[in-house]
């Protein structure tokens, strides 16, 4: 008798679940969105794809590993691993190394800029303003620090360089008490 009841119950729930799965089917590919939301959107292409979204698509379709994004760093790999229920991997050195320290933005040396527009064309977030044969300018508020505009793209030596974003009271951070603890123990 008990077996019969259990079987019946299983059948009922199974049907219910099957129905909801069809009835409330989610459109689109939400996993790509979720992965993309975790990527830093630097759009640097170090992962081997032409931007963060294409990389997200590649991860979703198992074409790429989760450890190919240096700007995201180990923390980024960890959050991707958490999302996808995978084991975190160390960053793949082939894609570059995660840079510690303050974030960087590009600056153009107005004295040497020849106005070739190469940087304007490559900037993935339209952060460089300037017309042909005119000096170009980087809009700090938009620059992701992807470094795509640096030489060899820029034909002039030392014309575009990266500089650290200046720290302010608003961006200053307290040190991590955990690290203090370690240094004390050492």
């Amino acid at each position, binding site marked *: 008798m008990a077996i019969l009841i259990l079987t019946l119950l299983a059948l009922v729930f199974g049907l219910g679940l099957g129905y909801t799965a069809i009835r409330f089917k989610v459109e689109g590919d939400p996993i790509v969105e979720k992965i993309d939301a975790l990527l830093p959107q630097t759009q640097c292409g170090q992962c081997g794809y032409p931007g963060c979204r294409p990389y997200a698509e590649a991860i979703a379709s198992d074409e790429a590993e989760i450890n190919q994004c240096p700007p995201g760093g180990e923390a980024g790999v960890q959050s991707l691993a958490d999302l996808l229920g995978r084991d975190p991997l160390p960053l793949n050195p082939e894609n570059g190394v995660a840079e510690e320290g303050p974030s960087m933005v590009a600056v153009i040396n107005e004295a040497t800029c020849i106005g070739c527009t190469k940087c304007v064309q490559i900037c*993935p*977030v*339209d952060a460089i303003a300037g017309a042909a044969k005119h000096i170009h300018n980087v809009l700090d508020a938009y620059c992701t620090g992807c470094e795509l505009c640096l030489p060899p793209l820029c034909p002039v030596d030392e014309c575009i360089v990266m500089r650290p974003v200046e720290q302010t*009271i608003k961006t200053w951070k*307290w040190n991590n*008490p955990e690290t203090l603890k370690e240094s004390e123990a050492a």
Partner: protein
Amino acid sequence: MKSLIRFRGGVKLPGFKSLSTKSPIQKTPLPSRLILPLRQHIGESANPVVEIGDYVYKGQIIADSNSFVSAPIHASSSGKIINIGPYTIPHQSGIAETCIVIETDGKDQWHPNIKQCDVPGSLSADQIRKKIKQAGIVGLGGAVFPSSAKLKPTREIDTLIINGVECEPYITCDDALMRTKADEIIHGILLLRRVLNPIECVIAIENNKPEAIKAVRSTLARFKEENIGSVNTIRVVPVPTIFPAGGEKQLIKQICNKEVPQHGLPYEVGVVCLNVGTTAAIYDCIYQGRPLVSRLVTITGEAVNHPANYQVLIGTPVEDVLAAAGGVQASKVDFIMGGPMMGQVLPDTGVPVVKATNCLLVKTPEKSKKQPVQLPCIRCGACANACPMQLLPQQLYWHARGKHFEKLNHYNLTDCIECGCCSVVCPSKIPLVHYFRFAKTEMREHEVKSKFADQSRLRMLARDARLERIKKEQEERKARRKAEREKKKAANQKQKQISESPKASSG
């Protein structure tokens, strides 16, 4: 009379107050240089309205702002502007911000327009508000919220609380002020009452300051006797000595039994809270016409030779102030701006005294440096009992270590007032409040980064769409040109055919 409500949490701390209350208030000498940061208050920083080389009088506005939540900066003495540029400000980070530097001329001459007001009684509420705004008055209890922004509440005010609690150990500047300038405070309250029309006014004073309570009470009695103003609705309420009884939310709970909503302001529950020092500054600005150019600072700590309360010009370098207090005995000491619980360790002593500086505490390294060994959390719950904001520090600690931002939000990290009660009671000596300060800055960075990432994502999409459009347009143009060319060709051919056909027919 309503009875006092005890707020939840808080800790009893040793006061160390008598250190600085033994000697009377003194004045620090005029320094040769005044450094005035443009941001000394919450809200927009002020913009310079003077240039290098200008001569300024004491009390002249040197930086101003149109923003509602902001305050102008005044020259605190007369002299020449010698620089406008970045100087280290009194902040834990040691970061430099724009400051205006005045080389004083020793005359300490007030601006000729600054005069006593003969008719303070006839000023309208709006005139008083405007004068308070122009005087650059901000909350002098340390929160430095522009006072003018508190004086235009969008609902009726039931209670005006004048905060003379001063619950942090070591600090006594409000105590000293109440003992010596009670009548200025009460004149200030009478002015505020004309602006806010509260039903009642409460002067809250911690019960470890009997002399201040006595002074304010007897001054109130004198006002009544001499009929200086109607003081019937003003009463002094001693509150128990427990830290942080002077926190705005905690005080409102005690006096009015009201809870200020999360992320809300006191006026939303019909309360406005101002510090006693701020109230005296309001008196100064209306009666004497004087803007906020100096304040009382407690200079204290076992390492200071003459601890006391000093009237200090805003912008005076800390080293000058310490020299006026007889210098410092030990060579390796921490300089703290504010109290031992919520103060900031100063990067160096070249930084100036600002509007927020209620105390300069010099602590010997034995006391402030030795860090106890931190043990694992034993889940005793002492921290949660001590937290005056009813948070769960133990949970916050766990999630701060793991940087679980969502969880930190869930446990209301942003409500933490960084009072440090949890750290004090923790038997495992976990520096909980340090973790929370750290986590707050981490969380802020995380928010900024994700906003920036969203912006970059959109800009990338917009760029892709634009490139796509350009490509399509180019293709269309190409196609159109091709079609035109073909049409022409066809037409040409037709013409050729036509021109050829007669030949053919004739042929």
